[in-house]
């Protein structure tokens, strides 16, 4: 499938989808969104890119094998729960901190975000692994 329109659109949409997926990820805590949806959105983006060009190009864009994302995601998700263990609290107790730059940012950051990031990466990795493998068949 190599129509010019699709290819151009895919390039633009890829960037847009990526930004949107990160937006969804960060937004998930207080509004609809979250790691799972974010991962799916960005997978859709790369799937579209792979349809427009081909899988090899899409893979080169990723600069890492899709399977690696899965394991990194799992590590991040599991690791986010290890911190509290060092303080003697149960595994996966949420740790929260405040990032304050007076006047500019006042952010509450916590380990659930890290966990969500891990889920994001896993969903991204799995979906793309499946789609790319099927495409290459």
């Amino acid at each position: 499938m190599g129509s010019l329109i699709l290819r151009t659109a895919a390039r633009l949409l890829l960037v847009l989808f990526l930004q949107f997926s990160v937006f969804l990820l960060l937004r998930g805590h207080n509004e609809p969104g979250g790691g799972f949806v974010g991962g799916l959105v960005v997978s859709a983006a790369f799937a579209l890119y792979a349809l427009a060009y081909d899988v090899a190009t899409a893979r080169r864009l990723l600069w890492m094998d899709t399977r690696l994302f899965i394991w990194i995601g799992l590590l991040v998700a599991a690791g986010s729960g290890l911190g509290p263990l060092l303080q003697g609290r149960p595994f996966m107790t949420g740790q929260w901190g405040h990032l304050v730059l007076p006047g500019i940012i006042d952010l509450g950051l916590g380990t659930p975000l890290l966990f969500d990031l891990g889920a994001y990466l896993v969903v991204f990795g799995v979906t793309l692994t499946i789609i790319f493998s099927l495409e290459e068949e």
Partner: protein
Amino acid sequence: MGMVVAVLSGFVLALAAPYLYRMTGRAAGWIFAVLPAGLVVYFATHIGAIEAGQTVSVTYEWVPALGISLSFYLDGLSLLFALLISGIGVLIVIYSGGYLEGHRQLGLFFAFILTFMGSMLGLVMADNAITLFVFWELTSLSSYFLIGFDHEREIARFSALQALLVTGLGGLALLAGLLLMGQVNGGLEISAWLGQGGAVQSHALYPLILLLVLGGAFTKSAQAPFHFWLPSAMEAPTPVSAYLHSATMVNAGIYLLARLNPILGGTHLWFYAVTVTGGITMLMGAMQALQQTDMKRILAYSTVSVLGTLTLLLGLGSEQAIKAAMVLILAHALYKAAMFLVAGAVDHGTGVRDINGLSGLRHAMPMVALAASVAALSMAGLPPLFGFIGKEMLYQAALETQPTRLLLIAVAVLTSMLLVAVAWIVGVRPFIGEKITTPKDPHDPPVSLWIGPGLLAGLGLLFGLLPDLLERSILSPSVEAVLGRPSAMDLALWHGLNPELALSVVTFAGGAGIYAGRNVLLAIASRVAAVTRWGPAAWYAVTLIGLNRVALAQTRLLQSGYLRVYLLTVVGIIAVLGGYTLIRGAQVVSPAVGFDIHFHELVLAVIMLLGAIVAARARSVLYSVVALGAVGYCVALIFVLFGAPDLGMTQFLIETLMVILFVIVFYRMPRFEKLSSTSVRLRDVFVATLAGGLITALVLRATAVQWYPSMSTYFAEHSYLLAHSRNIVNVILVDFRALDTLGEITVLAVAGAGVYTLLKLRPQKRED
């Protein structure tokens, strides 16, 4: 503490053994033997305390809620066995180093042997019923690995499996029996049971308990009709046969009977069940031993016979019988292990194991010949060897038994006669006479190969001459442990002219006669042999083959390889069973269904229904995929309508990706001319509707029932306070229930890996 270390040290060294072996080279056997030697010393230090009547016990909590603890108990009986296990273990390890020298898996062999040693030690010292069972099964398992050590040969694998299955089945029975006893006695500590014998024996479950425990003991100790695995186990390397299948593992059943004698013994049922089995086994084993020509098989059957004798003695249960049993355990272990090691040395040196092909070896292997003759004399029960003392005590016990005295004497004497003949055939005849040519040129084997049998045979001689060495220190305490009351022994070679001595003389004469006339006897036996073709070994083989056939048939039926069959089966059965339960157990609860439906909800429902119908009726795959996609989008809309935007978003995306995926897949696949026929579709629609109806009914029922306060109120109240969040769904996923989500993304990862593997690795045909 020390006892736990003693038991576990074998396992620890076993783990390191393959790596250590690479460093030790030729002296491996000697180096590894340091551990069992240390254990011998350790146990020997306890002799004094045990002799004085004390016991040593150690307990570690394991699963307190079930009463299971890792407890060990050292008394006279366990000390006797522990010394046997570790002492013979030293010699076996040394012997293995020489016998299997150069074998590429010798390190692994040492690991298995050490694991076995640790398991056996744990077994004899275990105080908790579950601990006992665990080590019991561990011995079966290590025996499996050891018998099948030469795993390239199919007969070795077959024999190992046979031993494992027979002893494993017995182990299950034993577990049941032990647990029942625990129920009756209100606890699982065996030392606590020892004082409560009356409770078990008068209990209604006593026959069942006895049957189960005897099942375990008889399978392990190769009593008829479970004896057939022991001769097959001779496929193992000789050190294994010498260690496991003569001196230690097969004695586990004997140990069990001895240990549980105060609790289960003394009743008529015990007397008849155990004595009769033992008697049959001892006679049959001896008769079979005479008919064999392979050295190891002769020894195997004679082991079966002696195990039968020990069982018989424990069945008799009198004080004299128990004393005889303890002495025989020791005597038998010493001479039988020695003889097996001799057989191995002969095999190693000449390449022949058939006694008809061996003669005149005393010139070539003097040390081995010496050890063999001494051990054979002990086996035949000739003075001044320890075996003689054992046999005398056997006769004494038989003479003292009141009912059936003559029968017992007859059986005992006949068996002993046969064993005399067998001892001569296997232990002396190969070494006397003229030399014959053998495949390998025989020579005296290295030290590691004759020190074992030499030492063991020598001990048989030493203890025969000086039985006082053992009398008070080890044997009396063990008898007391089995009897449950103090007892004194009087071991000596010469007790004066008494009936036992007369019986011994008769035995030797008879044995000589049997040897002289053995050809005649064998001819008679071979006529009768046709009967044994349908013996227990044949039943085992038939059962195994039948089991495999049934498994193959039912697998072919259920696991046909078609995904639609699996799906149909799973969904269908769930629908039927669930529906049945729902209808049966349904109190009439009218579901909380109001009928105020909005127009847009109605439209959604109609669209979903239409989509499902189109998917079921579609003429091409793409049509149905698209229709299913429409259904999916409607589901997503439902989520949105009912206040779950996250779910709705996710569902939209997944549905889109699914449609894309399907298109990719089906675009590439060849056209399917044959889609499901109408009747098949009707069947599928029926099952699907059933399943869907079931879930609907379940959901309606579930929402109508309110047993606990709803979780959603908890989450709603606490999500902002505890988790700083206003999106309850998300915070449940990543915070409140983060552990579940971690599990789910792991499953996702595994699924992804699975898909990848299926797709990528499939086309390569590996020529195996």
